[in-house]
């Protein structure tokens, strides 16, 4: 990044904005103040990071408040401190004045419980939700990962132009990796990671445990240390020396009883006998493959780590991009330099692979990569809650302003008794500061709860690397937010009230002062502002809603209703596993309520699958046209069980035996044999010589996710290319009955196998859209709150204005204006700022759309329907808000109105 990070620029803008509030005497030094702020932010960032920036903003805010209270006179001599102090102190100390103001403000708040409760609750909502979202976003996106050299850790992926249609960012190829590791000068260490798992039978009931293959340097480069024994080392990658395993603290305690002599003990996972060499400390988070790469990938957090031995079969040039990769940069090496270094090596590899091949490394800070899936969503949610907080501030500001009209006389008396303008402003600000502080305290408590709820239940795609929670940074943030809120709410009323306090207010003529005071332009500008924010949030909500509706309406290609998914398996030889799978299929099929059951190695919409190159055996295509296909192994009944239709030809038969056959999807058929019947033709998989005969064509399925269009897919019988994992059960009756029966039946079949897991296919589909659904619900909620508050704002300002203009309206009516004229007059006055705000808000939504793009599906940022709907919604709610004041105005009786004064 050549430019400065956004939060430095943001922090500087905030600090300068606050610095603009200095009293006029200091404002004359504006260029000096500005360059002071620049330098302070810069050096604070260098020394203390984001915390430093926050501290500078805090200091400037305090300084502004002090300067405003103290007035322009910054004395050279401190008369009060010296021996010359005689007679009356020139002014009371700031703190005692503040305490008196606070006591008075508290009394006033207690006298107006309605105002106080509304103010506190809306502030608590605004500040609480903003703090909660900030905390999560800060912990995920900004705070360094909890690893030794977190700032030097990078995630590496590859871009392969010929596979870019599958994913522009692919995991890493082992061949490329081994070249990087031997030729690159930019890294202290480079490591691969890929998930694995197996049945653990040591220490109790057999369970399936997840683990990972990692390079010898993987755990040490994170700066981790073993609690017992040692971590993996590069020597463990030597074939023959790789039967070692490091286990998690949880596995050690749960399955091995926390045995202190565990190091050196044997442990059997799957079919493999390991020796335990080390135990990780409790609470340590080790990155998973899905956290270091972009393609979605449903892996589980690991409980054991075994050495990743790169074998000859892994070294396939320009194919098998399968592995997660992290690197530890040498000190002083930038991400760009590391990328350039890898690019040089990639160029050599691509050139040696063929004339049209090309390869590019993608290097990112590990934190950026880990937070990538959550980033856009967090930014949008943070935007939505900030918009609501601003709307709350604007509303309260208007409310305080209208209350201030009633206090005009009180302030005039204070001024007459000698209170300075600044003392009056301070009194006003103390009140809003008090409200903001209490509101913040409520909000902060709510934020603690909300963060907890977000972590427990909210699907945000958060990486599981840093601890997330309310901490000192959240405290700093909420304190700052409180001060800023108080200034936002109180500054305007304080300024107006203290400035307009005049002798006139003491006389009978108080009304005229009231009119100039709250009248007008400023209030309307505030209303326009809040309408703009509400409209913007509503557009975002509308676009997310549209995306979600489109997504749910997508033709998945299969039927999830009444389908169950069972994961079951045993360790053992390939033959033993195939035999087990056949027995499971027979057992399930025999259960009451089961219509049919099939087997697959990978479920639909479960992330990127195994992709492989393919070419037609009849040689119709050149090597560069070979399509890349999704590859799955299934049993014949799988298609019926999950609801994929057979379009042409036939399904597999047991009689196919070892004769290589395949079914291909409609898309694959049209890619490979456009316009022809593929049945009877053959193809070869890249890297294999055996021709595979196409026996039928089946419907397209969303393989990776709902948002990603179906890719060309081929299916082979599971017994020919053995890979398995999931049984799909279609039930005839109530799925719950079958789901209850299944585990027992399977456990009876094979007591040595772990208890099978049964899930509804529909739940799996829901889980893939859960993140969107959550974002949608939160944004819709805040958008509705925003619109409601904005409508209240419109109502409040208009109602006040009508109350003030009663006499004028009376005059108009006496001069012949009809009730309809008055309706029109008032409604127009109410809607003018709404129209302005709407225009600004819709324009803002278009501008903000860039962040949103990644979250949309099937709708464009400027989708006219959404914008039209938002316009109608905002206009309608504002019309409703105008109705009551307009009706009151139209009912003004001219005779009474004119007599009143």
């Amino acid at each position, binding site marked *: 990044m050549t430019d400065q990070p956004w939060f430095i620029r943001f922090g500087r803008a905030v600090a300068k904005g606050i*610095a603009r509030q*200095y009293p006029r*005497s*200091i404002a004359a*030094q504006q*260029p*000096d*103040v500005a*360059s*002071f*702020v620049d*330098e*302070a932010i810069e*050096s604070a960032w260098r020394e203390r990071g984001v915390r430093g920036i926050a501290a500078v903003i805090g*200091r*400037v805010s*305090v*300084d*502004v408040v*002090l*300067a405003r209270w103290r007035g*322009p006179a*910054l*004395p*050279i*001599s*401190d008369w009060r*401190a*010296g021996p010359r102090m005689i007679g009356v102190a020139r002014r009371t100390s700031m703190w005692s004045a503040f305490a008196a103001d606070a006591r008075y403000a508290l009394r006033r708040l207690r006298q107006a419980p309605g105002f106080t409760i509304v103010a506190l609750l809306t502030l608590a909502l605004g500040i609480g939700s903003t703090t909660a979202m900030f905390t999560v976003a800060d912990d995920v996106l900004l705070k360094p990962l909890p690893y030794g050299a977190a700032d030097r850790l990078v995630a590496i992926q590859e871009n392969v132009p010929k596979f870019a249609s599958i994913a522009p960012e692919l995991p890493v190829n082992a061949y490329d990796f081994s070249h990087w590791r031997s030729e690159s000068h930019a890294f202290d260490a480079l490591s691969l990671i890929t998930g694995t798992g197996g049945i653990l039978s040591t220490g109790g009931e057999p369970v399936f445990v997840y683990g990972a293959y990692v390079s010898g340097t993987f755990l040490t480069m994170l700066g981790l240390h073993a609690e017992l024994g040692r971590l993996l080392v590069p020597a463990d990658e030597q074939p023959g020396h790789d039967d070692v395993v490091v286990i998690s603290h949880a596995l050690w305690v749960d399955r091995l009883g926390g045995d202190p002599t565990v190091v050196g003990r044997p442990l059997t996972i799957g079919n493999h006998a390991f020796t335990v060499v080390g135990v990780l400390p409790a609470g340590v988070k080790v990155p998973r493959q899905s956290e270091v790469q972009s393609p979605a990938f449903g892996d589980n957090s690991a409980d054991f780590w075994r050495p990743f031995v790169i074998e000859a079969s892994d070294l396939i040039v320009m194919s098998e991009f399968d592995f997660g990769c992290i690197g530890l940069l040498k000190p002083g090496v930038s991400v760009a330099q590391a990328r350039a270094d890898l690019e040089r090596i990639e160029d050599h590899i691509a050139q040696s692979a063929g004339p049209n091949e090309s390869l590019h490394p993608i290097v990112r800070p590990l934190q950026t990569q880990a937070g990538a899936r959550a980033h856009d969503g967090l930014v949008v949610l943070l935007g939505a809650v900030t918009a609501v907080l601003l709307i709350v501030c604007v509303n309260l500001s208007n409310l305080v302003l209208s209350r201030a009209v009633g206090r005009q006389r009180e302030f005039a008396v204070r001024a007459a008794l000698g209170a300075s303008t600044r003392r009056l402003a301070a009194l006003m600000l103390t009140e809003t500061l008090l409200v903001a502080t209490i509101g913040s305290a409520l909000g902060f408590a709510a934020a603690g709860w909300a963060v907890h709820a977000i972590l427990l239940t909210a699907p945000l795609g958060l990486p599981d690397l840093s601890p997330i929670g309310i901490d000192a940074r959240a405290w700093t943030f909420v304190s700052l937010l409180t001060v800023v809120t108080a200034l936002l709410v109180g500054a305007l009323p304080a300024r107006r009230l203290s400035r307009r306090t005049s002798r006139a207010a003491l006389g009978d003529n108080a009304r005229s002062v009231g009119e100039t005071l709250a009248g007008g332009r400023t209030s309307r500008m505030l209303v326009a502002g809040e309408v703009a924010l509400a409209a913007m949030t509503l557009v975002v909500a509308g676009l997310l809603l549209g995306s979600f509706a489109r997504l749910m309406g997508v033709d998945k290609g299969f039927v999830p209703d009444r389908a169950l998914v069972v994961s079951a398996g045993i360790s053992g030889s390939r033959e033993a596993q195939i035999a087990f799978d056949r027995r499971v299929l027979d057992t399930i099929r025999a259960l009451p309520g089961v219509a049919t059951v099939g087997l697959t190695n990978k479920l639909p919409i479960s992330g990127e699958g195994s992709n492989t190159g393919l070419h037609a055996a009849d040689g119709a295509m050149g090597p560069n046209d070979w399509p890349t296909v999704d590859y799955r192994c299934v049993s014949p009944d799988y298609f019926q069980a999950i609801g994929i239709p057979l379009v042409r030809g036939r399904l597999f038969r047991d009689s196919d035996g070892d004769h290589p056959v395949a079914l291909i999807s409609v898309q694959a058929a049209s890619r490979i044999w456009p316009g022809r019947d593929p049945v009877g033709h053959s193809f070869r998989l890249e890297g294999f010589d055996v021709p595979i005969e196409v026996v039928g064509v089946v419907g397209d399925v969303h393989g990776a996710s709902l948002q990603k269009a179906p890719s060309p897919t081929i299916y082979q019988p599971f017994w020919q290319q053995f890979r398995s994992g999931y049984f799909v059960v279609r039930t005839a009756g109530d799925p719950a009955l079958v789901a209850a029966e299944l585990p027992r039946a399977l456990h009876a079949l094979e007591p040595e196998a772990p208890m099978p897991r049964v899930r509804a296919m529909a739940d799996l589909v829901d889980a893939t859209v859960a993140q969107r659904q959550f974002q949608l619900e939160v944004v819709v909620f805040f958008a509705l709150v925003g619109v409601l508050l904005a409508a209240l704002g419109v109502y409040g300002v208009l109602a006040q204005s009508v109350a003030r203009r009663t006499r004028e309206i009376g005059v108009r009516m006496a001069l012949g204006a009809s009730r309809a004229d008055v309706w029109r007059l008032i409604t127009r006055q109410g809607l003018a700022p709404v129209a302005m705000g709407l225009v600004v808000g819709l324009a803002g939504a278009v501008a903000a759309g860039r962040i949103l793009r990644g979250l949309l599906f099937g709708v464009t940022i400027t989708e006219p329907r959404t914008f039209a709907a938002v316009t109608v919604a905002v206009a309608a709610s504002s019309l409703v808000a105008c109705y009551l004041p307009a009706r009151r105005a139209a009912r003004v009786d001219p005779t009474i109105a004119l007599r009143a004064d």
Partner: protein
Amino acid sequence: MGTRTDARSYLPLTAAVFHILLSLVDDDRHGYGIAKEVAAATRGQVRFGPGTLYGTLVRMAKAGLVVEVAGSPAHDRRRYFRLTSLGRDVARAEAHRLAALVSLARGKSLISRSRS
């Protein structure tokens, strides 16, 4: 505005003014430079906001305690400040005054005689 010449007529100084004078004793500095020097000298105990600092500096310049000098050409936006001889006298007088107070306190054994 005429400048008064009797250094003692400025005493006692506000803490802000004294800190600024001290920070300028050994070198000319610009606004943020002063703030940094003061923060470093007081181990972060005293931190100036820009408004307080420039508000005070303007007053001090008017009183003749500091003068503005041309900064380095590389940073033409910055204004550098230098101690005048009056400013130095005032700082010295304040230091003497405080030293006298401190020795009074020592005489009462309120604080120890060694450097605290």
